[in-house]
């Protein structure tokens, strides 16, 4: 590969959403045509490819793993990190097609979730780019009484649903796109009907005010929007993650994160701060527990104001 080509790769890998979409396309194609065993062999090639030819992702992985592992990352750590990412995206193809029988799910904290659901007023599930969202969703799709809607930016919503529909037309996510008052009112109506509303709280979509937090002993910024929404709509928030544990095993976790149900306006700011800090603590905890499941392949620990670091 010439220097020029490598630079181009850096440019597209640098764009986190585009690189994720590229991976999804490649893996969907391979999995649907070749089956899980052969496709997993291809996964190793993909992990190797990223290790060799995606310097920006590699750099981000190395910086993250040093914090999560508490030691300098070795080459095999980076490889394991890329492989885990590729494996979860690959498994999504089967999960979306309801092949739940292929997997072994271990679920923790389901009672917490069910207890909070029992009052029928809905709740927020707060995830992150940590592990497999589709593994958690598989759990929901097995339960016909559970109604789930995702909140995300409209651009992402379109891309994700285009992908899911390509795999299985019946698997499109019920998504509410952020950005307009209509969707906000719709979200409130859904909660009143008892829906579970899923959000990912670790990436900032734009000019959302940021909260400084400590994750893995290092300062990072988290967007306030997802928690502001939960606080405004006065609902409980449950943390969720579906960690890939190797082979066909997933470990799904739910943990109570915050409850804004009875928060008054004057208490709201303090409650928001507490909730975001707790979210950061949970991210920290699960990153250490399953370090290769963190799928933010960009400089997460960079202050928000100086994004776009100079490319080498």
């Amino acid at each position: 590969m010439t220097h020029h080509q490598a630079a181009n790769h850096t440019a597209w890998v640098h764009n986190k959403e585009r690189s994720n979409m590229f991976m999804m396309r490649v893996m969907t194609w391979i999995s649907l045509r070749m089956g899980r065993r052969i496709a997993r062999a291809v996964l190793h090639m993909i992990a190797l490819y990223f290790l060799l030819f995606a310097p920006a992702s590699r750099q981000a992985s190395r910086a993250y793993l040093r914090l999560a592992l508490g030691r300098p990352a070795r080459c095999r750590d980076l490889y394991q990190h890329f492989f885990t990412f590729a494996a979860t995206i690959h498994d999504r193809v089967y999960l979306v097609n309801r092949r739940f029988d292929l997997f072994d799910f271990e679920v923790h904290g389901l009672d917490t979730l069910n207890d909070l659901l029992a009052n029928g007023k809905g709740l927020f599930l707060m995830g992150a780019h940590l592990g497999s969202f589709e593994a958690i969703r598989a759990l929901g799709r097995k339960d016909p009484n559970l109604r789930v809607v995702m909140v995300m930016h409209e651009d992402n919503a379109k891309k994700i649903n285009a992908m899911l529909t390509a795999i299985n037309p019946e698997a499109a996510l019920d998504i509410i796109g952020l950005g307009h008052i209509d969707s906000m009112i719709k979200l409130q109506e859904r909660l009143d009907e008892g829906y579970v509303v899923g959000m990912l709280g670790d990436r900032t979509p734009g000019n959302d005010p940021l909260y400084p937090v400590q994750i893995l002993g290092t300062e990072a910024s988290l967007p306030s929007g997802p928690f502001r929404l939960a606080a405004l709509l006065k609902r409980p928030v449950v943390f969720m993650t579906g960690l890939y544990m190797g082979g066909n095993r997933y470990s799904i976790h739910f943990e109570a994160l915050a409850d804004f149900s009875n928060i008054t306006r004057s208490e709201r700011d303090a409650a928001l701060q507490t909730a975001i800090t707790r979210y950061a603590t949970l991210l920290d905890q699960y990153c250490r527990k399953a370090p290769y499941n963190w799928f933010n392949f960009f400089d997460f620990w960079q202050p928000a104001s100086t994004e776009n670091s100079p490319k080498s």
Partner: protein
Amino acid sequence: MQENPNSIPSNSPELQREVAALMVECLNLEISADQIIPDAPLYGEGLGLDSIDVLEVALVVSKRYGLQLRSDSADNRHIFSSLHSLSDYIAAKRTR
């Protein structure tokens, strides 16, 4: 929906001021109510609110004036485009 017989005329400056004051209070804005330009957009480069802020305004005014907001109403985006249009809507639909 019927017009409320007690409604203040739609372009009432009193109602506009009252709604502006509600917005300043619920969002802790750093400007005073009379600094909100009635026709300036609430979003983006106008007042600079995001959709969560606008939702908060929607929740507060619907409670204060007894409005029923519905997500399938085609007018929502227009209603919440400026202080002026929001006040007009309140004047027409208020039940308290």
